[in-house]
């Protein structure tokens, strides 16, 4: 069973009197354990697509099925529950809570995901991303690469089926970007979690198993890369 399937997904944004057609009927199937990147020029609809897949936003038309559950027509509260349970997010600008330590950021994600607080598990998640020595640092005491590792630990601690990362390397230099990607690739291989990226970055494209190219809200290419 695919982890994700999209059928003729359309997304319109109202813009004053008219509307913007951000996605013009996207159909796509993703199998568990894939490491997939959406590529395409700015404005092609990558973020819009990831938001819909991650249950942050609803499609205007078409069908979205996530891990066997139909997402269309769910209430905002149900959508929130589904997202907390099944999806982990890694944001372009890390978006850690600045007043919390690395460990507390990871613990918070567990708790908001409806799971009992578990310090040992949160610590292990940080150890897995190579931050065993930085557990009690605040985000502003960490480098960009380290912050993004905390964000990855936060996304993975509740063992989500799907991890979504919108331009995860855009705010990192190439060395840190490569390290973060290698980490995600390793976690993908070891855990079997499905990863969906969006990117402009060739560094990312060289490390994924599948590249879906978008242009003006449509899929123009879908390549599998064997490594």
């Amino acid at each position, binding site marked *: 069973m695919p982890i994700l399937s999209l059928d003729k997904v359309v997304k319109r944004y109202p813009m004053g009197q008219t509307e913007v057609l951000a996605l013009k009927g996207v159909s796509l199937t993703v199998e568990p354990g894939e490491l997939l990147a959406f590529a395409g020029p700015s404005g092609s609809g990558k*973020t819009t697509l990831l*938001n819909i897949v991650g249950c*942050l*936003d609803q499609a205007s038309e078409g069908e979205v099925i996530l891990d066997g559950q139909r997402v269309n027509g769910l209430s905002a509260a149900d959508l929130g529950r589904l997202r907390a349970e099944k999806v982990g997010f890694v944001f*372009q*600008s890390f*978006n850690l809570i*600045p007043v919390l330590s690395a460990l507390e950021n990871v613990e918070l994600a567990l708790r908001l995901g*409806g799971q009992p607080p578990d310090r040992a598990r949160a610590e292990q998640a940080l150890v897995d991303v190579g931050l065993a020595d930085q557990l009690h640092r605040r985000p502003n005491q960490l480098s960009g690469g380290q912050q993004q590792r905390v964000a990855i630990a936060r996304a993975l601690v509740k063992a989500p089926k799907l991890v979504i990362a919108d331009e995860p390397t855009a705010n990192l230099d190439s060395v840190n970007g490569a390290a973060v990607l290698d980490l995600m690739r390793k976690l993908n291989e070891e855990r079997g979690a499905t990863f969906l990226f969006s990117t402009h970055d060739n560094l990312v494209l060289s490390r994924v198993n599948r590249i879906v190219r978008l242009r003006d809200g449509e899929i123009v290419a879908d390549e599998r890369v064997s490594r």
Partner: protein
Amino acid sequence: MRSSFPLYENIAETAPVVKAINDAGYDAHPLIRVGVTVSAGEEIGEHFGLLLGAERSYYEDVMNLDEHIVEGAFFTPGEESTQVILGKTLATDVGAKLGEEVLFLGQTQDGSISPIKGVLVGIVDADDALSNRQAYASLERLRYLTDIPDGAIEVAVRVGDPARAPEVAAVLRESPALKPYLVQAWSERPLFATISDMTGLVYGVLAGSIVFITALGVLNTMLMSVLERTSEVGVLRALGMGRAAVVFLFVVEALVIGVLGALPGVVLGAIVSFFLERDGVEMGEKVSAQVSMPISTTFRADLSLEVTLISFALGLSMAALGALLPSIRAAGIQPVDAMRSHR
């Protein structure tokens, strides 16, 4: 020629009035207070003042005038009808010296000019502006000046506890001998009624403005705080936090800030009020001289537990109220905003 109306309403015979009040168990003091010009020495000045005529017992027991003499002495017993005492301000204005003869020009009740004289024996400083601008003489001399041989303009009744005045007034009103007259407690007299209405209004406006400004301040602070944390809230929402939890978060934050603000505020205010109530602040003769009322020249606070608690509760509710709109706004932040907010 007599005018058809007396210039001032008066009590033609005070004896039955005083008796009725005494029978009811209270002290009674006939008083005559009229406007006069005051002059001393050679020149006839243009100084206006109030001249009070009362019995010795009123000056001693009610006004405590004898204790406030700052120059000279109180009335010599038996010599009251030839002596006068001046308030400090009036004495300075007129330039009267002890032992000098002071001339008062007033009007009888039917309007003719009427003079009396007296030797200045003492000067008082009574801690209130009006008393310091008055002159004091015997009731007998004022009866002569106003041509009301057996009467007075009013009869003052002394009640131990000022708060009981309206109650006593109600009792006296029922006395047959007092039926023809207007019986009023001090708090019922038009001047005081107006003043207490006005202070009520001033308090209301003041409290209202403070509440408004506080709420506005909290509103502004919390709106900024929500705006600054749009992406943080977006992340919390993306991670599964519900709307109600977001509102709760910001209201709790506002309440904590409210307590942290209101607590020191109330404590500080209470300390300041405590000293203002105990010691007061002397406003000085200059300030009080602007006011034509018998008010103290010392400014005092009125501290009570009730007011303190109300202020604290008000501070907290303002914080909660000011936080409500921003919190609802925070709950409106969509999780997609976390994805889109590029720093």
